């Protein structure tokens, strides 16, 4: 508890309050704008925060940046509901289900209460998942501290298996992306022996491919290129918002769905690979199943908004647990957050709570504050945010390219990285439009060096005997879990059942 109080002390510092506010504000805007998801939003803001915090001490800079970036992440979950409800076009994939009932409510003139319930549900879910995060963080990181290199290797393989098993339509493609990401991570000087690998004497490559450049290119530029090539006409009229304060019976009606959505979302969020999208989908199905009036779903019932919106927010809180305690990101967005932390030499994982308690607890405390800010921001300001939807892409898209180029140049100070950025932008567009999921690639790139180092340490200790991964009991169990994670959806597909996959995390 004292740690949490210290965390609040960190988070309540004036500049950190400002960063949290900026983060949730930008996050909401990112969620509202169709075309920019949480992943590209966070990637795009890494260099911006890096330049904003450049005057700070290293640890402080890390805390402030991660507070802002996490704010963007859960702020986007709030904002995503706005477009789903008002326009029937979800701003990001985790709000797809919200559109089913939300848009119907808006058509009936109840957009205001739908938006309010979405905000309240998101808030409640955010708090629930944070309390669970506080309770679970210490015990989990204590368990993970007992892990040796072999266990770590297997744990990371499990993380990769989980994400690759659930991403996209073709598991082969997802695995190819994972391996490709791992391969890209081997470029540069080998951290163990100092030997150069795949650099071909290009001095820019000695440090390896910069994670930032790759992530911004793949996600931010990839999406911009897609938006330019596939011009979408958006002539839908925006629904009127009307009264914002929900009626008493609507609040009463949605209390249950919010509570169930929060818990379910949190549990789904902890699992690597199953992100906010799946959480919102599951909770909607659950509500429909246990409801006394299942026929009302899809026609504008408030439970159909409350449950998925709570679930996707709770999932984003739950996803922080494996990231902070184990150092294993469970989704594309958390992989980007992890990359950002590593840019500041802060290694997420069990040691994080010992080595950088201010970063870990400051972040957790700031998420409490950020959620309160979001609630305050979203209730009265929802009409203003709805206006953001009307930002013409004519100005938005070139500006995103300019921001990406500025960001990469500001951090790297070489034009080589701008070319790399543009190249990865095209690659990201091509791969994503052809069903090659990008999240596993980024995950592989982030986890690559850690997997390799742990593998080599384990093998060095065992004199090159690969059986060491099976002989250690924990490592064995983790590997079996990884195999099951891949095998079960595969077997279900063979049986002819359709498997729900995460299209986009």
């Amino acid at each position, binding site marked *: 508890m004292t740690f949490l109080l210290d965390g609040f002390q960190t988070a309540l510092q004036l500049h950190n309050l400002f960063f949290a506010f900026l983060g949730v504000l930008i996050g909401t805007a990112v969620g509202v704008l169709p075309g920019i998801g949480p992943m590209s939003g966070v990637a795009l803001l890494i260099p911006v925060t890096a330049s904003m915090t450049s005057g700070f001490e290293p640890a402080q800079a890390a805390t402030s940046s991660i507070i802002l970036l996490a704010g963007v992440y859960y702020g986007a979950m709030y904002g995503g509901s706005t477009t789903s409800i008002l326009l029937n076009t979800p701003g990001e994939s985790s709000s797809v289900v919200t559109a089913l009932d939300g848009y119907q409510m808006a058509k009936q003139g109840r957009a205001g209460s739908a938006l309010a319930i979405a905000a309240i549900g998101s808030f409640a879910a955010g708090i629930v998942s944070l309390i669970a995060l506080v309770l679970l963080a210490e015990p989990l990181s204590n368990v993970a501290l007992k892990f040796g290199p072999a266990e770590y290797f297997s744990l990371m393989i499990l993380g990769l298996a989980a994400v690759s098993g659930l991403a996209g339509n073709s598991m082969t493609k997802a695995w190819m992306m994972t391996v490709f990401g791992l391969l890209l991570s081997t470029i540069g000087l080998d951290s163990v*022996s100092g030997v150069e*690998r795949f650099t071909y004497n290009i001095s820019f490559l000695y440090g390896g491919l910069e994670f930032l450049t790759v992530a911004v290119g793949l996600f931010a530029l990839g999406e911009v290129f897609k938006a330019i090539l596939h011009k979408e006409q958006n002539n839908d009229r925006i629904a009127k918002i009307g009264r914002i304060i929900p009626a008493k019976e609507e609040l009463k009606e949605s209390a249950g769905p919010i509570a169930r959505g929060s818990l379910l979302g949190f549990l789904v969020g902890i699992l690597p690979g199953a992100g906010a999208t799946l959480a919102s989908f599951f909770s909607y199905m659950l509500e429909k199943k246990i409801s006394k009036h299942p026929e009302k779903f899809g026609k504008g019932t408030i439970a159909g908004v409350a449950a998925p919106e709570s679930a996707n927010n709770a999932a984003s809180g739950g996803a922080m647990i494996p990231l902070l305690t184990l150092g294993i990101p469970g989704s594309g967005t958390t992989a980007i957050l992890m990359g950002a932390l590593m840019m500041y030499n802060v290694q997420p994982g069990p040691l994080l709570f010992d080595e950088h308690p201010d970063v870990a607890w400051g972040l957790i405390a700031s998420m409490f504050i950020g959620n309160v800010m979001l609630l305050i921001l979203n209730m009265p300001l929802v009409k203003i945010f709805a206006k953001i939807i009307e930002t013409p892409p004519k100005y938005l898209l070139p500006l995103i390219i300019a921001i990406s180029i500025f960001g990469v140049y500001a951090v790297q100070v070489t034009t080589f990285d701008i070319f790399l950025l543009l190249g990865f932008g095209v690659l990201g567009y091509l791969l994503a439009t052809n069903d090659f999921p990008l999240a596993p690639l980024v995950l592989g790139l982030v986890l690559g060096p850690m997997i390799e180092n742990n593998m080599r340490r384990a093998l060095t200790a065992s004199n*090159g005997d690969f059986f060491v991964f099976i002989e250690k009991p924990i490592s064995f169990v983790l590997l079996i879990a990884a195999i099951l994670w891949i095998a079960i959806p595969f077997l279900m597909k063979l049986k002819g059942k359709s498997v729900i996959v995460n299209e986009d995390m």
Partner: protein
Amino acid sequence: MNKTFDRIATLTFLAIGVLFMIGSLRISKSAYGSVVGPNVFPFLLGLILVLLSVKLLFETMRYRSTHGEKQRLQYKKFWTIFISSIFYAILLEPIGYVITTFLFLIIGFQTMEKGSIWKSIIIAACFSLGVYGLYVKMLQGTLPSWPIWLR
């Protein structure tokens, strides 16, 4: 799904896997008393990538291409913006951040949609000068400044 793209991508990834395997054979095997040198991990990964590519190649033979309605892609807009961003990168250091960014944004805005030239000029000027002022003057970051003949 697009069969042609999948085939090309598969062959590309196959080639990448093979190249990484060959490349890793050329890495020196010095491992300082350890059996596992810096070449093992990339070699294994290259091998896995090759195997996965072969698997996908077989999969692409099985499924039928599901051609939906072909959307007309805006190639002209894309190439204009992409090529101007390449020029943006090339010219960034020689003629400075403000000028290149301003020009890139004007071209970008006008390519997306012709018209309201004054609004474009104002937004582009605000962004390029604003970023430069904030980042270089206030935060003391480095960006290529004005070209020599203007200073």
